[in-house]
């Protein structure tokens, strides 16, 4: 570790992994409820499990992004962090808020939670992914602002690189677009229209800046390729991201009451969104092929390459599959959406966080890389989780294609519930893949405890 204050990243990474475990457990609960409808009912109704699953996902990714930032900003800026103390305080505030929110979902009926937490003052709850009570939403804003303050102050007193500039732009964008979660008009069409300014402009906009910056940082470190080359790639990729992704928001405006011209704008621009993801893959492989050094951390390189490939498959290929308006007319809101959501979130954002953890954690623990034995176990977990996610996606895709056919295209359309019964076999297979995913995650965690010979960093 070059700078003492980089150490604050460690608790962020540990919390991210712990919450990831919680996310997967609730995913498995829901997966079972898909086929055994009354499982854990009424103790944990499906909607409660879903909130826990998706909110834990968002929170652990945010922990990962913050940890990544605290790790790489001092090194990029070549100076200690402005205030390590503030970073630790916000860590505990964020963790406490996250845990309290999840306990609230699990222990209090949602309507009562809304009443106790001031939803009558400003109604923001009860919308997908934005279910958090008002105090939690305010807490997120406060934590993120103090975090950005800390990072910007650090940058100002040190070297300003393209990587840190792009990262901070992404983080500022994350904060700014989150503010739309406080806007919930009575008019349902407007509610939905601006809801996507959080969700779409996050994952297909500003988060891609964060993704690109973290990946670029790790690639410089593990390959030793010239910074000029890496940073030029980074700019080109994120340029493509924003010129396709901003107007690409239109692929969510086809059927929610917005004007029909969005079918053209949305289809054309979102059809180009796979380009930056494709470039990201090419970039990662290119840099590794041109490497100027053999970094001892092979696992981190594997995660970096995996991120490129899986992000392209999940976001690029699976996104393209249903993004053209005439296709989306039939697939909108089916298991195909879920298939895409899973592989894209895992392939892009979960994997980039696991990449930086894989690179940084050994250094934070005082060695350049883990022992060979530990790395082999970590690489096993990479394959278990990644292949399990590929199968989850394939089974959900099969379920989605059948669902679309039986319920929407067929001349004698079946009801929703009857359709669900006829595709149950695929939900069972998804659940089995989910168990393999959990095993992969357990293997991942054990890799942290495997000793062996290591070199000092």
């Amino acid at each position, binding site marked *: 570790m070059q700078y003492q204050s980089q150490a604050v990243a460690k608790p962020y990474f540990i919390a991210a992994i712990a919450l990831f475990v919680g996310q997967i457990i609730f995913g498995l609960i*829901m997966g079972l*409820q*898909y086929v055994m*409808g*009354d499982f854990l009912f*009424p103790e944990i*109704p*499906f*909607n*409660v499990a*879903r*909130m826990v699953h998706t909110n834990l996902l968002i929170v652990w990714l945010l922990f990962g992004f913050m940890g990544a930032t605290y790790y790489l900003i001092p090194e990029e800026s070549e100076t200690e962090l402005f205030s390590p103390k503030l970073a630790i305080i916000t860590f505990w505030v964020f963790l406490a808020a996250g845990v309290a929110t999840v306990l609230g979902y699990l222990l209090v009926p*949602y*309507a009562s939670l*809304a009443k106790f937490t001031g939803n009558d003052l400003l*109604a923001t*709850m*009860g*919308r*997908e992914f934005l279910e958090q009570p008002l105090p939690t939403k305010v807490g997120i804003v406060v934590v993120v602002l103090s975090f950005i303050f800390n990072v910007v102050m650090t940058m100002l007193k040190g070297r300003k690189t393209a990587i840190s500039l792009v990262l901070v732009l992404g983080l500022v964008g994350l904060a700014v677009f989150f503010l739309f979660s406080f806007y*919930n008009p*009575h*008019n*349902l*069409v*407007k509610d*939905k*229209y601006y809801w996507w300014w959080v969700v779409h402009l996050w994952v297909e906009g500003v988060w891609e800046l964060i993704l690109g910056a973290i990946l670029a940082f790790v690639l410089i470190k593990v390959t030793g390729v010239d910074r*000029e080359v890496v940073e*030029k*790639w980074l*700019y080109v990729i994120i*340029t493509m991201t*924003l*010129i396709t992704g*901003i*107007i690409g*928001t239109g692929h969510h405006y*086809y*059927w*929610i*009451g917005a*004007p*029909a011209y*969005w*079918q053209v*704008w949305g289809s054309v621009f979102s059809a180009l969104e796979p380009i930056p993801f494709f470039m990201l893959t090419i970039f990662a492989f290119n840099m590794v092929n041109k490497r100027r050094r053999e970094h001892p951390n092979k696992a981190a390189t594997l995660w970096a390459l995996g991120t490129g490939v899986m992000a392209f498959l999940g976001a690029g290929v699976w996104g393209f599959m249903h993004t053209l308006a005439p296709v989306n*007319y*039939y697939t909108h*809101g*089916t*298991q195909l*959406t*879920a298939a895409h959501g899973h592989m894209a979130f895992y392939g892009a954002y979960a994997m980039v966080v696991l990449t930086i953890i894989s690179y940084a954690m050994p250094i934070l623990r005082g060695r350049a890389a883990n022992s060979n034995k530990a790395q082999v176990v970590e690489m096993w977990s990479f394959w278990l989780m990644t292949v399990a996610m590929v199968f989850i996606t394939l089974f959900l895709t099969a379920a989605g294609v059948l669902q679309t056919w039986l*319920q*929407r295209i067929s001349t004698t359309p079946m*009801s*929703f*519930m009857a359709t*669900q019964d006829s595709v149950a076999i695929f939900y069972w297979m998804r659940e089995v893949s989910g168990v393999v995913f959990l095993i992969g995650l357990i293997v991942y965690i054990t890799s942290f405890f495997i000793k062996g010979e290591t070199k000092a960093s």
Partner: protein
Amino acid sequence: MATRFTKSMARNIFFGGSLFFFLLFLALTFDTNQKLPKRDNSQNLTASVIHGKKLWETNNCIGCHTLLGEGAYFAPELGNVYKRRGPDFIKAWIKSQPTGVPGRRQMPQFNFTEQELNDLVEFLKYTSEINTNNWPPNIEG
């Protein structure tokens, strides 16, 4: 990439391009807002509908159902349920939950008052009258 293409050129294209497309997005958003009143059924946003929307949110209905295709995929689309089932069926259905049929997906009991049930139905009626460019493809949602 050609060596003549420098990093600062790449950065300038990034800032210029992003700004341009963001402004274009704002312009389209402005135009959308102008056109919405003809499509979004907002003339029927009564106090009852508004309260119905709040009940929809504070009971997290979106955690199982889709509404105009967005939400969870565990339970049926409700954007057009008013047309599919009608007001009386919807109220009777909500009141009779959970079914308790072994192995079947279960919907909780929310203990709504008669007034609250009416408001929810009004909200679903309002939603079903939004101009969605003919989505969903058929009545099953």
